[in-house]
């Protein structure tokens, strides 16, 4: 956990006071809605279909139990008793009143949580691997660097009015759980031949209406230079990114239009002239930030405790354990994913009561720490294996032990037309229907890893382009229709999915997905071949045939 010091706390309190003043000026009419819009967006406040929506940052996906309880409190007190975890380590409240927002922010600031820059054309919440610090084989804890970047990007005097939003993600593992290749800047922590820590820097990834996989711009930037290098990229973007057309304003378009070579030369030229720009991180500064992350005092525990051996006799426990429990870097411990994808439920929602209960379980079994991943699930990062059976029982009672992590019903979906003013089509009901179709856990297990992503409009908040199966809702002649892509992925082998054919109506989406899955089961060359690998091997054609033969 990162502990805020007095300075961090002062800044977020100052931010709350500023926003309180801005809301007051808006309510008195001193600020026009146009002027206020930018200010509220910089504090995570959107105007949605029914009410204001409030997006709160969970930097690099780490929460303490105290912080999670406070999120529950906000859900209960200012909203309708729940919150929605998003694909970028944020939580959203959908029913909040403008006049309550300053108080909600103040309540959050008490526990070191803020909503700064969770929307607007600025540098957004810096995201990272939800298993950071506990994943086996990690280069080092990427949250140290995420926190350095979080501070640097907060209220940046030069880059708070960019052409468009700007997202940075960091991973330190070989397997990328942070989807860095679909970010404006993706950073992969690794060591050079001299054993020094640095980053491979990727730039220009993003989804939305023009999806791009990020391109490598520098194979190795030393850790001490990462702020100045990022600043150089931002400066080039701030000056040359397009501002004439909102749909062409992301850095991915600039990189695409200039070409990565020219863009890279521009950045290098700027970086050279900056000559550090006062941003070089000396060792002691990095260590200072590192020292404010605390790590649990792990016990020396056996790899296979008796409790686990005994519980193995229960097939339901075993099914959950095999699905939701991952290896930890410390022997005797596990990382446990809590599925927020119950059958028939909206993906990523948690009730205030569930949040409180998870906070209690984190205190009991996970050193008071909780993680939030971009797949819209939670995780307890430090669970002793001997506690797994007890934890499972507790999670099961809470409805948080659905054994579907990474399976076909672990669906990523945006809020869609049920909440969002941008959406053209519903997302959540499609997800709910699919979880019912594939409710049989045995079938889902047999299908294996399969990510379905659903977006209710071309802005792609549900990351449909990088779903193994992507579903994009669009409006055609007043009807909701859905385009289906297959073969996308968001990991280290990131890829944009390919369209299988004409869009299908709302009522047929679940049937089409079932057809695609059945085709896969018939086509895979062995049970271990994942859906996405079968698509890679065979292409779109056999799936297309199956889907459209009878339609």
């Amino acid at each position, binding site marked *: 956990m990162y502990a805020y010091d007095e300075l961090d706390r002062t800044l977020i309190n100052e931010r709350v006071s500023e926003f309180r003043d801005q809301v007051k000026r808006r309510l008195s009419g001193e600020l026009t809605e146009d002027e206020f819009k930018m200010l509220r967006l910089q504090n995570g406040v959107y105007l949605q279909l029914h009410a204001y929506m409030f997006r709160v940052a969970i930097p690099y996906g780490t929460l303490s139990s105290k912080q999670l309880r406070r999120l529950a409190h906000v859900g209960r007190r200012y909203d309708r008793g729940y919150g929605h975890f998003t694909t970028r380590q944020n939580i959203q409240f959908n029913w909040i009143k403008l006049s309550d927002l300053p108080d909600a922010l103040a309540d959050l600031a008490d526990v070191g949580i803020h909503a700064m820059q969770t929307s607007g054309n600025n540098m957004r919440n810096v995201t990272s691997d939800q298993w950071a610090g506990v994943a086996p084989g990690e280069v080092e804890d990427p949250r140290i660097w995420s926190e350095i970047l979080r501070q640097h990007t907060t209220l940046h*005097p*030069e880059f*708070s*009015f960019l052409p468009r939003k700007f997202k940075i993600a960091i991973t330190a593992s070989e397997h990328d759980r942070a989807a860095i290749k679909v970010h404006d800047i993706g950073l992969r922590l690794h060591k050079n031949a001299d054993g020094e820590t640095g980053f491979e820097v990727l730039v220009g990834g993003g989804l939305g209406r023009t999806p791009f996989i990020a391109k490598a711009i520098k194979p190795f930037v030393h850790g001490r230079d990462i702020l100045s290098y990022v600043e150089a990229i931002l400066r080039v973007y701030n000056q040359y990114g397009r501002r004439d057309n909102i749909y062409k304003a992301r850095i991915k378009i600039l990189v695409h239009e200039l070409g990565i070579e020219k863009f890279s030369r521009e950045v290098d030229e700027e970086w050279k002239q900056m000559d550090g720009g006062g941003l070089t991180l000396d060792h002691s500064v990095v260590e*200072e930030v590192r020292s404010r992350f605390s790590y649990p005092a792990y016990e020396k525990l056996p790899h296979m405790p008796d409790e686990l051996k005994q519980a193995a006799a229960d097939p339901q426990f075993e099914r959950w354990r095999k699905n939701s429990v991952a290896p930890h870097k410390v022997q005797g411990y596990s990382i446990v994913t809590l599925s927020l994808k119950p059958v028939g439920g909206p993906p990523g929602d948690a009730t205030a009561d569930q949040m409180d209960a998870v906070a209690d379980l984190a205190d009991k079994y996970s050193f008071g720490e909780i993680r939030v991943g971009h797949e819209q699930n939670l995780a307890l990062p430090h669970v002793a294996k001997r506690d797994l059976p007890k934890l499972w029982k507790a999670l099961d009672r809470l409805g948080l032990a659905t054994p579907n992590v990474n399976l076909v019903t672990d669906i990523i979906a945006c809020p869609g037309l049920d909440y969002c003013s941008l959406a053209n089509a519903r997302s959540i009901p499609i997800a709910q229907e699919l979880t019912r179709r594939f409710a049989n856990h045995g079938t889902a297990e047999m299908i294996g890893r399969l990510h379905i992503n659903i977006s209710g409009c071309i802005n792609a908040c549900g990351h449909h382009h990088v779903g193994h199966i992507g579903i994009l809702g669009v409006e055609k002649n007043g009807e909701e229709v859905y385009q289906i892509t297959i073969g996308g992925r968001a990991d280290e082998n990131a890829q944009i999915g390919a369209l299988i054919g004409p869009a299908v109506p709302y009522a047929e989406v679940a049937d089409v997905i079932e057809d695609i899955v059945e085709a896969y089961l018939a086509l895979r060359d062995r049970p271990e071949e994942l859906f996405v690998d079968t698509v890679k091997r065979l292409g779109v054609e056999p799936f297309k045939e199956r889907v459209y033969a009878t339609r």
Partner: protein
Amino acid sequence: MPLVKNAKITTDLFVHVADGAELPGDGDILVPAQRFLGDPEALLKRTGKVGVIWPNNRAVDDLVPHLTRLAAVALVFPSFRDGRAYSQARLLRERHGYGGELRATGQVLRDQFVFMSRAGFDTFEVKKDADADAFAETMKRYSVFYQPTGDGRVTALHRRTQLRHSESAGQ
């Protein structure tokens, strides 16, 4: 439109002279970049100070050779959403060592004052009277700053380092 300079509302001594408009015989003038670059010498030898209004879509490189002879540089925010002039301001101050008046023009509103000041602006053509009146108060909103810029404010990192040194000295 009120002018705030060095944190106080003050009378603007500069006259904005548009492209093609007649030059006043003497007195301080702010002229568009194009006009200035057309014949800098003619403008500089008249009586009165000269400032240049530099557009936000042109690199400041062409302005740099003239900086030492200019009394003011005015950068433009066509909309408060358009943040290009923040980069230009920092480049002028921090890279090119410009020490004269750096003026924010266009849609200059209260909630941008802190950002602008941190980027190096010291003079503001403020859109609304109420915002100009609130200038001093607004500048006190923040006491903690994460990024080093040329404005001289001490960053959080620096304060932490100092704190650590004073703690270890006390041991």
